[in-house]
């Protein structure tokens, strides 16, 4: 018997055609697509790409393609990205990814445990070699031969390398998996690294954030499943549909920035009026993420809307990139009083010595 397509799975779960089309529409929106991207690598019939509406392409793809297994590994993480995913408010989309697209291995979500689930993972990696999608959450410690993080008695590094070997593509979700995140913060005791520091021979898509926006993760997974390829990426391997513009560019407080109206503390008049949080350390201008447009909890709010400045959690090195509440224009390294005194003394001595030498030379003449 031929393998069931994603649509058939969807129907067997009791969803109607109407639900399916709505999910396709949600997917298109979540993937940030306005037109059909090139489908050369997708194994889709070429007529799908010619002038068709994106939603039709997505529907046809899901009707014709088999499920893609996803293996989800967790290393030095807090499971926050998984938490965000399961609490996301776009249920059809998340159902699609969690149930229909079939996450085959997930340490937090799987009901099975122990040797059974590890054996299942091995079986899936064997059966779908070169086809499955690997999602990584959490950073990988290289210190002490990887002994800082082990699952099933094997180091994170070992597990990652093994799973990456047979993966079609790798998605690093959350700042830890992408750039090392909190575990890599100074002094980085475990020598934590992001996935792309270790896996260099496979495409690695970074979905940074703390946690990653669930729609960005599922949207990217969906893009791979529907089109068979990865979305367009920026220089940090982040999908452009979600990381194309800064938080500042889409911020609802932006007009106050332009008008020079800033909250100066968390409980002043400006904070109550909803003015710009730039002076309170907002990193929105240098942070590329979709927080301000997709938002969280079904578009309810996001940190800046709720009155807290952006921490820049989708950027590398965000824990050490200056204080969270220090204005972004402020320098990262400030000279200490001692350094300033030293520099001044150096100038005074050099100037004095030079002047004295010049004078003695003049006297000799």
């Amino acid at each position: 018997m031929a393998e069931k397509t994603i649509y058939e799975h969807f129907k067997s779960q009791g969803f109607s055609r109407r639900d399916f089309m709505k999910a396709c529409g949600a997917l298109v929106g979540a993937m940030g697509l306005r037109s059909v991207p090139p489908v050369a690598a997708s194994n889709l019939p070429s007529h799908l790409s010619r002038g068709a509406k994106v939603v039709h392409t997505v529907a046809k793809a899901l009707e014709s393609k088999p499920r893609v297994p996803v293996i989800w590994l967790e290393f030095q993480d807090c499971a926050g990205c998984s938490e965000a995913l399961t609490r996301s408010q776009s249920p059809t989309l998340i159902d699609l990814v969690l149930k229909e697209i079939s996450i085959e291995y997930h340490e937090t979500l799987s009901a099975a445990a122990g040797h059974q689930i590890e054996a299942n993972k091995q079986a899936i990696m064997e059966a779908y070699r070169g086809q499955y999608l690997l999602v990584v959450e959490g950073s990988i410690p290289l210190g002490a031969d990887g002994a800082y993080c082990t699952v099933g008695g094997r180091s994170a590094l070992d597990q990652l390398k093994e799973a990456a070997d047979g993966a079609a593509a790798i998605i690093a979700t959350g700042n830890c998996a992408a750039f090392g995140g909190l575990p890599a913060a100074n002094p980085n005791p475990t020598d934590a690294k992001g996935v792309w520091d270790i896996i260099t021979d496979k495409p690695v898509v970074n979905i940074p954030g703390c946690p990653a926006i669930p729609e960005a993760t599922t949207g990217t997974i969906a893009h791979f499943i529907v089109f068979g390829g990865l979305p367009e990426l920026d220089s940090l391997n982040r999908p452009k549909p979600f990381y194309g513009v800064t938080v500042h560019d889409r911020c609802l407080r932006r007009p106050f920035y332009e008008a020079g109206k800033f909250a100066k503390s968390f409980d002043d008049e400006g904070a109550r009026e909803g003015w710009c949080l730039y002076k309170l350390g907002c990193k929105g201008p240098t942070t590329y993420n979709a927080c301000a447009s997709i938002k969280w909890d079904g578009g309810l709010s996001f940190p800046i809307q709720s009155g807290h400045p952006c921490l820049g959690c989708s950027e590398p090195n965000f824990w050490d990139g200056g204080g969270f509440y220090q204005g972004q224009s402020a320098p990262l390294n400030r000279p200490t009083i001692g350094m300033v005194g030293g520099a001044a003394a150096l100038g005074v001595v050099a100037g004095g010595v030079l002047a004295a030498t010049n004078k003695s030379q003049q006297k000799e003449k």
Partner: protein
Amino acid sequence: MDWNAFLEFTRGPMFQVALLIFIAGMFFRLVRILMLGWSKDLAPTRGSKAGGVAKSYLKAFLILPFYPWVKGTFRRNPIMYVAGGLFHLGLFTVIFLGTPHMLVWKSLLGFGWPTLALPIVDWLAVGAIIAMLVLLLVRVSTPLLKMLSGPAEYLNWLVVFLPMISGYVMTHHLFFPYEVAYSLHMLSINIMLIWIPFSRISHFMFYFFSRTAHGAEWGRVSVNP
């Protein structure tokens, strides 16, 4: 190229080093000037030196040369005065009354102050940038100024112009991603900080020396040897 990493470098260690070089360089210059010493008064002072100094600063405060009916200099060279004035006004406003710059001062000095709204600072910055372009054109088109200008003069212009234009590009999110424009802005500022002590841009400090010295000289009202 990872521009965010480069930004961290230009905002962090590079800025710190540039600032220390600036401080050391300015103190070096200061000592050199002070050790030149004052010339001895060989003739008795008939006026008041202190009065002369006060008058000198009052004149500067009232920016006397800028009133066409007070001084002939303005009428003879209005472009220089208008462009020069606009440039300095814009520069001071941006550096001290622009919010992002005040936050730099705050992080360095430990205290902040109220700032102007972005549109006001912005228009003054535009004025300063246009003024700089005008001044450059005047410099290359006036034979006398051209003769007086060497590589150092053009370098001074460039070193001040780059932070201004990159700051404007960054504020308005033009051409480059924000972190690229920000990196270039910081890079140009660091270069400027290192260059200032060894150039005539240091007149922001030595201006006060010449005001004082000249004021005292005028106030003496006596015969100069």
